[in-house]
């Protein structure tokens, strides 16, 4: 079942998704979209892990994906809470509004 699709296809797909995610982070200014793009990048990496895991018959890749999911869940929860809190102060989610760190 696995043999039908070469491993490099999965890797290439994941590279494309990763690049799209990274590009999205740069193109958009909306913090929520940026968060989504980061999630997409993580998912792309996860896909690589799982692909390697099944092509190499190793459980480690899947465990890693598990851990990444934990991190992603925490990241989204904290990130969104931060966003809501920021929104209370600035009335905005545009990241260019949050520029008070400049020198």
């Amino acid at each position: 079942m696995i043999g039908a699709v070469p491993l490099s296809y999965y890797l290439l797909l994941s590279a494309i998704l990763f690049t799209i995610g990274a590009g999205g982070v740069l193109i958009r200014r909306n913090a929520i979209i940026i968060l989504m793009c980061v999630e997409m990048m993580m998912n792309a990496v996860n896909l690589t892990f799982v692909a390697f895991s099944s092509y190499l018959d190793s459980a480690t890749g899947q465990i890693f994906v598990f851990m990444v999911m934990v991190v992603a869940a925490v990241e989204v929860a904290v990130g969104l809470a931060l966003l809501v809190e920021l929104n209370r102060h600035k009335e905005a989610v545009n990241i260019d509004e949050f520029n008070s760190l400049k020198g």
Partner: protein
Amino acid sequence: MIGNWQSVIDKQRMTNLIWLVIALPLAGALFNGIFGRRVGYQVVAKVAPTMVFLAFLIGLGGAFETYARHGKAQLVTLWTWAEIGELNIPISFLVDPLSMTMVLVITGVGFLIHIYATDYMVHHHHGETHPDRDFARFFTFLNLFIASMLVLVLGDNYLMMFIGWELVGACSYLLIGFWHDRGDDPQPAIEIEGGEAVQVAPLLSPAASGMKAFVVNRIGDVGFALGVFLIWTTFGTLQFDQLFSRIASSAEMYRESALHGEFTVISMIALLLFIGAMGKSAQIPLYVWLPDAMAGPTPVSALIHAATMVTAGIYMIVRSNIIYTSAPNVSFLVAMVGALTAFFAATIALVQVDLKRVLAYSTVSQLGYMFMAVGVGAYTAGMFHLVTHAFFKACLFLGAGSVMHALGDVIDIRRMGGLRKKMPHTAMTFYLGGLALAGFPLTAGFFSKDEILAKTFEYSPMLWGIGIVTAGMTAFYTFRAIFLAFEGEPRDQELYDHAHENRLAVTAPLWILAVLAIFGGLLGLPAPLLHGVGIDIPHAMENWLHPVIQQVGHHEVHHLPFITELALFLISGFLGVASIGLAYYFYIVDRSIPQNLARSTHPIFALLVNKYYIDELYNTVFVKPALTLSNTMSRGIDQTLIDGIVDGSAYGIAELGKYLSQLQNGFISRYALATFIGVLFLVGYFFLGGQFPNWIY
């Protein structure tokens, strides 16, 4: 049927379930901690003791199976906690006679004290019951303590022992400071007829006492930790079985060189570990925290500061007996420190007016006895005394608590008197416990103390001398306290009228412990002596613990001559009885004698009442200089010098930053872009350029 039992035992189900002994009290602590406030105190009062009792039952099963396999140690490994390089830390438990003895003492006595506490922490007023404000918190900590103590004794390596060691310290801190909102307790001066009154320092507040205990214990813990590190660097393992077999192979060599005056690495380990034991088991010079620990609720004093936690040092030394046997020089130090502690604490106990402090100093003194025993190599005797001491001292503390409860938290024996008529059960059990502590013939304390003294005599008659004098003083101060509290006329009529006997939940544990205090001696009847008169009853404790105590070299197992043994036996027995008689004469027959004595020896009396001014000494020598030093450091060095450098460099950087900050425009997207380009270069270099230069690794 017997065969069936054997097969049941052979499967060692209870042994494999030994983790439950820890898990159950832990579960109780979790439950009480999370839901305790919500479910009401009655539920808490049932959950907490039940958990300990179940743990006791499993411990009993484990001990039974250990007995059935003739004391052979059994490892129960749960999982590997961490594996870093060579350091392998399994979560595993050692089930052997020593750990099982401790488990039974901890859970058994612990259970009785839990039962006792369910009533002690409730105040009855005119038919209404008011549980303590933090009833659930108390039982959370108490259960947590039981679990931690069991980790300490069940762990099969020094790291787990250390974890338990620190956990019990933390629990002790939490429990001593349980009534953290109470302040210092000023004490009235001791009046002497026709003489100058002796001022008494105020008792520390519970919060301060907890802190003191914690800090003093830290000093010991540093020693213990260093000892564990040294074991790891020297032998490369912390597992008991591997470590001890490694030491055993060269124990004889170490022993010889130590006897020739060399200070070997084993001696260093033994010394560092002993420093830890000094802290936890309240030996000179680190004993000062224990008397102040009496600021905690009485069940805590009974459980932690008499029966279990303070004996952790003894347990540790008995567990490491091969180390101490290989380091006879340190063993001698242990015995000396023990003997001195026993003696000094007993002298202080002679004149204390606070019932719990008398018992506290007596605990320090008895712990000194135990250290003397393990110092002279009588590990079994030390353990035996540990067990009997747990029985009678818990009984005495609980009795003192019962009195406190009845008198509305009054603990000053100058305000008691005649309480026997009001509180017959408490008085009776207190008498029995007191007899055991005083070493009255045929009680548990008598046998264990006598065994220690006999073994000490064999080692050094001088130490025996200190021991026997201490024994006399022990009997005297114990019965001084008993007579002042329970006999004679009431000295505070109002308190006396108010007093009443406590409920069954308080008296039942008292009676059980009192019976154990009397009959606990059956665990270690003096076999050589009985053999001399033609009775062959083995020393149960010795046979039981035999597999744990490792023999070094070819020791001649020689006993004292029968006649010497008998003489020692009779001397200590006689001394106990005589001292009780003396106390009777002083405090019942002619009350003026102690007054006269105090007047005529006023300076010594004042010295004893003020505990040799050790606390003041430590304050002047260590605490105040340390505070001054830290103040100087923080003001002089830190604020001017260090902060000057820091502020200066910060200022410089800030100046520099003014120019560099042009790069920082505050737009997150620009930063992300910079990161992206950086990643691009790195990835490009890594994939297309081949290798990173070597220095990067």
